[in-house]
């Protein structure tokens, strides 16, 4: 930190550590080294595993092929990280010559312009932008897949795509969106805005911050390779034994999850440490902005959750390579073991996604209503209660699995208890609005959409949490519609609100308003039409994840597809607005919304160390209003 402290004077030359390897490495060298290393490992494994007869007759057995592919994928990730320079620091530290001050400054990327976005850059603001672009890319890819799925389902007997392609799309859409949604708020805003909000120079571990982004980056090509390796037939849940039976594309799924879990673990540790240790003077826990609290609880919840997913994937990989039979009942293993491990991650994960979105909206409402956040304590209890209960509810996804039916009762109890802390979140939002005159700007619109969507998602969730109703609804389109209302209608709407709110700080320009409004209404109306149709299909008895359906479901599916096209068009308009405004938007003032959190006290471009002098905090940032 001390180096960066000293460094912060506005006009100084770009640091140029002579002959340092660090200056010559970037994304390009990473890609080259990654590909070379992957090819080497591929070649070495393949040749060592081919027996003499195989060489003559046939390619590798499926098991050996899985070993080769997984090896090459991990090699790509490690090679890329080496090629971009991620290991220089640890290596120097190992041999006793840590990075020089000049090199540290160079890594922070100050004065390097656009170039630094393609480098192993430790500035949290650069990492935030990298995450934002990454999130938008993933949402774009996942959204395109959704459009293909809906197009195929527009009418019964439609053969726009084959069953193999369809099943792959369902799985890849799922996992792409889950990854995108996990990082959608904590990635861009957690990295760019949060350190400024708590009055810190940077994250606690700047180099780990760069690591978390670039590790995540290496997972993207791996995930895409699934497509070229025959796809994944399992959906994003990757249930065993189907995943064991699956073809080579499954390796890409496994490798993606393992790489992603490393990235989230690093990011989670970094964000929690930053918030605990680097709050500025006077920022007691009861003065921390609610978005910071929400994000911290969310990543803290992810820290124990994702390793479980990672372990389940390592075990799946072992089953697929060395025939370990962990999840194969015919070998004494159990598919239920997999489902348990998966959902022990999977249920906390939906709250990892949801909480930062809600927290972003809670940051927005007081600013636009010009009233204090209603019951800060209720907000914290809401988040903490949800996080606490969410680790006790996982088997509600398994009511109909036949596994331990006598546990269905207890899991129903814990699940329905979640409606209490969830209710507090609603109370905070409407309590803040009460007697206010909301300033109808884009961020505030998202709050209204959130309340409606999350209400529908919540009520339908109550039926699903109830065992006798779930015994009809489980595995149907009704479930798909329900979780899209929570993850997309609630969490993504929250994140889009956050984007509209923080865009001026992150880009220095205002988001194109008219395009934003058009996009908002197209997405929200389309979304509600889309998933109304899907609730209908589910209630009528259409299973989820089907490539085709009976004539009975014709109307409901057509409604869904029409809604989907509206969402798709709206999202394209939003994408246009984001790209267009980035360079051509109206120049934003320092504090366009008149907010009281610290990020609005720094100019754009935000200086390398954020503040000339760290601010001292004397109250929470919600001191709006007449009377007190």
């Amino acid at each position, binding site marked *: 930190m001390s180096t960066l402290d000293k460094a912060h004077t506005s006009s100084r030359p770009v640091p140029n550590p002579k002959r340092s390897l660090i200056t010559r490495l970037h994304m390009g060298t990473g890609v080259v080294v990654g590909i070379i290393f992957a090819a080497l490992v591929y070649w070495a494994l393949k040749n060592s595993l081919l027996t003499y007869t195989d060489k003559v007759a046939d390619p590798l057995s499926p098991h050996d092929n899985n070993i080769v592919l997984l090896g090459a994928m991990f090699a790509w990730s490690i090679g890329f990280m080496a090629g971009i320079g991620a290991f220089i620091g640890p290596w120097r530290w190992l041999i006793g010559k840590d990075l020089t001050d000049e090199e540290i400054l160079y890594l922070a990327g100050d004065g390097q312009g656009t170039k630094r976005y393609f480098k192993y850059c430790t500035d949290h603001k650069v990492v935030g932008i990298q995450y934002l672009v990454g999130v938008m890319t993933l949402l774009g890819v996942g959204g395109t897949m959704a459009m293909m799925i809906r197009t195929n389902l527009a009418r019964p007997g439609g053969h726009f795509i084959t069953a193999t392609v369809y099943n792959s799309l369902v799985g890849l859409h799922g996992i792409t969106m889950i990854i995108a949604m996990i990082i959608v708020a904590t990635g861009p805003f957690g990295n760019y805005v949060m350190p400024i909000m708590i009055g810190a120079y940077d994250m606690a571990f700047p180099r780990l911050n760069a690591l978390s982004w670039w590790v995540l980056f290496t997972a993207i090509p791996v995930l895409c390779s699934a497509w070229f390796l025959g796809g994944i037939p399992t959906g994003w849940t990757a249930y065993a034994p189907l995943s064991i039976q699956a073809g080579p594309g499954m390796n890409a799924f496994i490798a993606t999850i393992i790489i992603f879990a490393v990235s989230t673990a690093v990011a989670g540790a970094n964000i929690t440490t930053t918030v605990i240790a680097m709050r500025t003077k006077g920022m007691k826990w009861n003065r921390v902005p609610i978005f910071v609290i929400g994000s911290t609880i969310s990543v803290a919840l992810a820290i124990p959750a994702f390793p479980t997913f990672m372990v389940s994937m390592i075990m799946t990989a072992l089953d697929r390579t060395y025939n370990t039979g962990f999840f194969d009942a015919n070998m004494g293993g159990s598919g239920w073991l997999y489902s348990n491990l998966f959902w022990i991650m999977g249920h906390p994960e939906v709250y990892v996604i949801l909480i930062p979105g809600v927290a972003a909206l809670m940051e927005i409402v007081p600013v636009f209503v010009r009233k*204090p956040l209603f019951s800060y304590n209720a907000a914290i209890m809401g988040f903490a209660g949800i996080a606490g209960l969410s680790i006790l509810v996982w088997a509600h996804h398994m009511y109909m699995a036949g596994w331990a039916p006598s546990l269905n009762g207890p899991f129903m109890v814990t699940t329905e208890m979640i409606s209490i802390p969830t209710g507090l979140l609603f109370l905070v939002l409407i309590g803040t609005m009460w007697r206010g005159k909301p300033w109808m700007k884009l961020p505030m619109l998202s709050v209204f959409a959130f309340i409606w969507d999350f209400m529908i998602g919540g009520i339908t969730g109550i039926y699903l949490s109830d065992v006798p109703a779930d015994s009809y609804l489980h595995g149907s389109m009704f479930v798909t519609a329900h979780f899209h209302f929570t993850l997309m209608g609630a969490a993504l709407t929250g994140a889009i609100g956050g984007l509209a709110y923080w865009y001026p700080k992150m880009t220095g320009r205002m988001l194109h308003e008219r395009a934003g409004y058009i996009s908002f209404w197209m997405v929200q109306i389309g979304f509600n039409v889309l998933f109304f149709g899907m609730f209908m299909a589910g209630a009528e008895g259409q299973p989820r994840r089907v490539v085709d359906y009976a004539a009975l479901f014709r109307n409901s599916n057509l409604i869904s597809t029409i809604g989907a096209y509206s969402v798709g068009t709206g999202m394209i308009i939003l994408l246009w607005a984001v790209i267009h405004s980035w360079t051509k938007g109206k120049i934003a003032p320092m504090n366009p919304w008149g907010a009281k959190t610290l990020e609005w006290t720094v100019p754009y471009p935000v200086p390398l160390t954020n503040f000339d002098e760290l601010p001292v905090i004397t109250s929470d940032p919600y001191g709006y209003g007449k009377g007190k």
Partner: protein
Amino acid sequence: MADHSVEELAPTPGDRATRFLKRADVKQTTLFFIFWTALFVVLGIYFYPKWMPTIMSVEMKSAEKIMIWFTVISAPIAGFVLAVATTAFMNRHRGDTPPPDGPAIRTNGPVVAVWTVTSLVFALVAIIWGLTEMNGQAVAAAKDAKSAITIEVRGSQWVWTFNYPAQGIETHELNLPIGVPVIFDVKSADVNHSFWPVQLGVKVDANAQVTTVIHTTPDKLGPIDVKCAELCGLYHAYMETTGEIQSASDFDAWVTAQGGHKA
């Protein structure tokens, strides 16, 4: 709900209540509350019975009942939340500068308490309702076990096979006699499937090597659909068949036609 009385001079509780209820935004909220609550009640009562297939068992009836009634019970809560939001939306501020500050309401103890207790009561109602239904189904199943017919259901990629051990037949269509309790012993020959006789409102996964069990009693004559509710690979969508709930004599005739015998 808010401390609206900051400027007032020691009003009595009665005065305060009257003034509160006379406020324009309170009236507005009340109207929206009635509107949204009614809307949710109507939606729940209208759509679910319209959408859901023929109810052919107690289990299916209970699923539908829960969907309707939980909507009705949550309607006032949803109605209140949406009413406050709608009122705020109607009183919105436009323009390029922020609106003037509103009242500085930091919190309101009684409101938070009432809200929390309400949601607790709501959660308890849902929990007790669900547990009672589950218990009822379990008791009925235990009582009916002796008179039940057993069917061994086997899921395999991508076919359902039904073995009637007592009747000595194996088929791919699921015919059942009306009014007779039925126990399904479900198993998979390969990956996970989920056995879903749609109109009977029950469901359980089919796993390799272990048998899972569900029971129900069909109580209405007519055709049924059997589907797979767990993604099981390439032709998951087509892993479906049909069957019929029949009168005792029709069922016996069908069994005989399949080459089986009366149990």
